[in-house]
């Protein structure tokens, strides 16, 4: 691809260009790029991702609506993340949750299966965490231990 416009052409065209901040693209494009990089649906880490989201909010006594409000996403998105590991979460929602959780977004994107797995230790930690967590009404000490262990694993991964 070679551009051959004259300098005069650029002068005329740039003079026509207003002062708007230029940009194009959508979160769908980002998701598409993620899908292109991911060879298979990472159900195991996505289960851990959903469990982590659920336990994080329950640990604070939040319901899904409260978390959705704070993160600025739809409550339906939170429920889908927690309950439907087959569904691919919206990258924007994952970004926003990462900010609420104060976790690097790349790690949460990896857990959510939106980018190619790069850290085997994270996946192992996620699978262990998902396997140890039980879906009960209250966060019991066992869950809390698993939850805190997983948070530590994420923190360790983030340092590497």
């Amino acid at each position, binding site marked *: *691809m*070679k*551009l*051959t*416009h004259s*300098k005069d*052409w*650029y*002068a*005329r*065209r*740039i003079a*026509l*260009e*207003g*002062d*708007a*901040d*230029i*940009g*194009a*693209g*959508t*979160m*769908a*494009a*980002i998701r*598409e*790029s*993620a899908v*292109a*990089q991911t060879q298979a649906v990472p159900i195991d880490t996505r289960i851990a991702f959903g469990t982590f989201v659920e336990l994080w909010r329950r640990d604070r006594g939040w319901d899904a609506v409260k978390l959705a409000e704070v993160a*600025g996403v739809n409550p339906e998105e939170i429920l889908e993340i927690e309950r439907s590991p087959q569904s691919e979460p919206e990258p*924007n929602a994952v*970004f*926003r949750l990462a*900010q609420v959780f104060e976790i690097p*977004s*790349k790690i949460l994107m990896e857990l959510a299966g939106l*980018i*190619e797995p790069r850290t085997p230790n994270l996946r192992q930690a996620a699978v262990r965490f998902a396997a140890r967590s039980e879906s009960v009404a209250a966060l019991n000490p066992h869950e809390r231990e698993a939850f805190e262990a997983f948070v530590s694993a994420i923190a360790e991964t983030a340092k590497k």
Partner: protein
Amino acid sequence: MTVSQVYLKKIAINQLVDASLYDEITDQHLAMWKSTWVPAMEAYCQGRAEAKKPDDSQWDWKWKAEGWRPFLKYHSFSIVCEKELQGLMLASDVKSARVQDQFGKPIVYVELLASAPWNRSKIQKPKRFHGVGTVLMAAAVQLSIDMGFKGRVGLHSLPGAVSFYKDDCGMTPLGNDAAYGNWIYFEMTEKQAAEFRQK
């Protein structure tokens, strides 16, 4: 990789200056993005509410560019001026037109396009260079022509750039697209591409 001689307007001297358009985002460009673009964006976003941050503040160009390199359907572009990165674009060639008189015909679709933070009036006043959008749209139109698509181009505009695509580029707005974050979809027809290239 091909490098084209292009021009940007340097605001400080109010004159066009030489710039280079690469039809590839190289590792060197990604290193420039990380060392200058990212810190500038982070500095601007520091302490701002989420809604006040630029729509592309979370875009990871390194991830996108590296992830898309193996796929033939993707094309990447970068602008360098005065040894600094000024704009980036990723486009694909497998989508179809939506405008009625060219419906179903292949288009170049601009997946992602952004100018460097210092070239945005909302981030830096005065901004450093003007014309990044023009150069990147010229590249998209030329790619479309080279692909045999006769200049047909489609994209979803970031909210702040609607006037650029509608008024400055003469593209046709097709309304908010619920499937793409409800952002406005624009398309450039063959005729509009010819006008864009002649003006």
